[in-house]
């Protein structure tokens, strides 16, 4: 495959970025998108140029580290929901021009090229995305019963890998799908009940403070989500926060 790549290049957080155009003449359709970028970086290194910086880790679609906006779509396509690392070049046509940009959100500042700082997500998690689990002895497995349908819904929400595609896709750069996935995943389980009110109040406050926009119920986030997190979780978060607003203490 022959491809033309338009890639966002930015030396550091404060630098002005620009698009650079690269040509690749021998891309295998079996390559993953990141392997294609690896090959480009080899070409650039051999030519004495700076390679393109991009985030990646497991390359199995489960860690949530990678992610770029490809032709206007986070992780590249809506057909087979997956992360950028699991996107293969057979999804593109030979001769195509591919535009590659970082996630765009004020709360996700660009560090370099295609890498953005997603520590805003970590701060949201730190403000309630956990349960108080007593340490030392392992609890008896059947002491707390969980209904199958509830545990299934909780597991659906728990599938969120925090990649940030929801924020990248949202026209308001809102982080509600991410935050809601965490709130729903813990809030649907008995273990998550003691901190349920504190969790939603804390996580939403930090989410708002981080500079993410609000939700307009359009569903772009869910469409871009490689783990298909449902809009249900946002409704659940809204209800939890409304209830928290009327709680004493």
């Amino acid at each position, binding site marked *: 495959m022959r491809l033309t790549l*338009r890639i*966002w290049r930015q030396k550091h957080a404060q630098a002005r970025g620009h*698009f650079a155009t690269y040509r690749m003449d021998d891309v295998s359709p079996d390559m993953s998108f990141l392997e294609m970028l690896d090959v480009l970086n080899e070409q650039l290194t051999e030519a004495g140029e700076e390679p393109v910086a991009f985030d990646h880790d497991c390359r199995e679609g489960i860690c949530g580290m990678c992610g770029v*906006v490809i*032709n*206007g*779509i986070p992780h590249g396509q809506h057909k087979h929901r997956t992360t950028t690392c699991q996107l293969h070049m057979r999804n593109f046509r030979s001769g195509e021009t591919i*535009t590659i*940009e970082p996630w*765009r*959100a*004020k*709360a996700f500042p660009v560090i370099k090229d295609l890498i953005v700082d997603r520590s805003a997500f970590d701060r949201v998690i730190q403000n309630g995305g956990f349960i108080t689990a007593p340490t030392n002895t392992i609890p008896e497995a059947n002491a707390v019963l969980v209904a199958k349908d509830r545990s299934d819904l909780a597991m659906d929400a728990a599938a969120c890998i925090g990649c940030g595609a929801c924020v990248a896709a949202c*026209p*308001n*750069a*809102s982080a*509600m799908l991410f935050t809601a996935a965490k709130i729903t995943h813990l809030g649907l389980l008995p273990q998550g009940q003691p901190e349920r009110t504190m969790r939603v*109040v804390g996580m*939403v*406050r930090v*989410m*708002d403070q981080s*500079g*993410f*926009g*609000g*939700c*307009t*119920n*359009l*569903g*772009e986030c869910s*469409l871009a989500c490689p783990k298909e997190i*449902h*809009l*249900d979780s*946002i*409704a*659940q*978060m*809204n*209800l*939890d*926060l*409304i209830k*928290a*607003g*009327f*709680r004493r203490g």
Partner: protein
Amino acid sequence: MTGILSLYRSTIGKKVVMALTGFILTAYVFVHMIGNLKVFAGAEKLNHYAEWLRLDMGYPILASFQGLWITRIVLLVAVGLHVISALQLWAMANAGRAVGYAQKKPSYTVYLGQMMRLGGIAIAFFIGYHLLHLTTGSIHPEFVHGEVYHNVISGFQNTLVSVFYIAALVALGVHILHGTWSMFQTLGLNNRRYDAMWRTVALLVTLAILVGDLSIPVAVLAGWLY
């Protein structure tokens, strides 16, 4: 109380305000549509109904004009809160993405989002026009106070006015379609089991408002009402 205030300060709290005021406004538009249909019952019935709205609504609990003014104040407060919250959320959304994408994916939902905001502005202008046209009559050349039937028919006999009303109603329809479903989602009443039901409710409410209200300028233009 502090809980409710901190709820309002959050993005979600502002959305809750939009949902609740949106509910009041949609309910009003729906009842307004049913009232409008009195035009098909003839001049006497419509004028009598309009007089009842002004003088006798809420009788015997309320005196003349009190029901009318309570309605006006509730609507004004609802519109005010709806617009303020919308503008605040719009500003936050704009600030949320300072640098935009070079390559945008054409998306129905993203246009819908823009339509909600720009359509909202259009609806605000339309409400102003509508009040000057059929409430105060300031911009209605043949306006006669209290002669509601005459004012409606002569107003809509102007093709340009009718076309403007029809366009505004379509904008209102799009707004109410997304807004009504959004209300259930924002208030946390939605989930995958009820989603189809709420979408159907939103569609039926929108269609009822559109068909009911559009029938009047269409009937006047077609010559069925005169």
